[in-house]
């Protein structure tokens, strides 16, 4: 999570109001921000709102970023706060029907495989979406971003022990609710 010289230059250019530099920053981090928002909200449309708000917040507060701090941690904190603050407009899992329709309309030899994959993804996403917010965000940072307990603790503002216990509770719930996927996933117990 240490900035290299290029990142530093880009951030400094952003702080001087260089909009092209902001575009560079956006391109470098858009997938990360959108993925966290999507995995947390479970709704592509809501994820777009959260990602948009995150980058607008970033643009509006980049002046406050200190060069000696970790930019990625700072960005993670913005997107996490946006996720947690985001008004829940009623959960909509319908957008995932798009995925099902895509799978069905795929070439015949792949259709069944894709359908299964989409179904599994929906199951996982939907069950993760039912976790309490503080467990869900920890699960997303751990498995979408692959962050360590210490990194998650720093971003979320709690101790690594609390992260571990939230993950542990989430694992138990998810293990119970996702038990039907074990057979399908077969060798993924890596």
């Amino acid at each position: 999570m240490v900035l290299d010289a290029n990142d530093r230059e880009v951030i400094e250019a952003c702080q001087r109001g260089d909009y092209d530099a902001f575009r560079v920053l956006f391109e470098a981090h858009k997938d990360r921000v959108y993925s966290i928002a999507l995995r947390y909200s479970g709704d592509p449309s809501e994820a777009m709102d959260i990602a948009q708000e995150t980058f607008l917040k970033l643009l509006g507060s980049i002046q406050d970023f200190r060069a000696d701090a970790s930019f990625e941690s700072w960005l993670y904190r913005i997107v996490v706060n946006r996720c947690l603050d985001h008004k829940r407009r009623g959960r909509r899992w319908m957008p995932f029907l798009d995925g099902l329709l895509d799978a069905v309309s795929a070439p015949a030899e792949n259709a069944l495989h894709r359908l299964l994959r989409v179904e599994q993804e929906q199951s996982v996403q939907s069950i993760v979406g039912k976790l309490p917010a503080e467990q869900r965000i920890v699960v997303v940072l751990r498995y979408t971003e692959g962050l360590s307990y210490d990194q998650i603790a720093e971003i979320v503002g709690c101790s690594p022990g609390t992260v571990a216990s939230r993950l542990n509770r989430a694992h138990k719930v998810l293990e119970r609710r996702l038990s039907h996927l074990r057979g399908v996933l077969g060798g993924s117990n890596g």
Partner: protein
Amino acid sequence: MVKAELRKTGIEAVLEQRLARVSAPEELWDRVRYPRVERPSVHMSVNAARMSACATVAAAIMLLVWHFHTGGAAVQFRSSDPGMVRAWVQANAGIDVPLHSGYLVGANVNHGRAEIAYRVGGRDLSLLVSNSRGASLKNGANFAWAAGGQTYMLACTAPEDLKACALCHLGG
């Protein structure tokens, strides 16, 4: 705890696989560059969509009439968050208005000029900001001043309108 981190259980493998990072849609940049205020509802019958379209047109006409009569708050970017409004104005008009807090409704930009919309005493007002020095008073503005290479204009009809100062100045 270290042990728990290293040991990958079945559920961890499933989560890693199914919650993996995805690519952001291309239109995200447009959403950041030209922030959208409202998003359309996706669950709507045809009749509801028609009624909604009629209502939207009627509302737009009313808003337009009201706007021209009152100079009201039809804003392109609606937010009370100073950071977001500042960022949006900077991105779309190239003007940095050092907004802090208070009374904000949103902003418009037009021909390189920003209009910061705010609400005081139930009335919608706007602070015009232009990059050009010495711009003449426009749109009924009766106060103009320059700061930081920018010209600010304000139409004041009541003392409380000067609460616009609090938009940029703490305790203003």
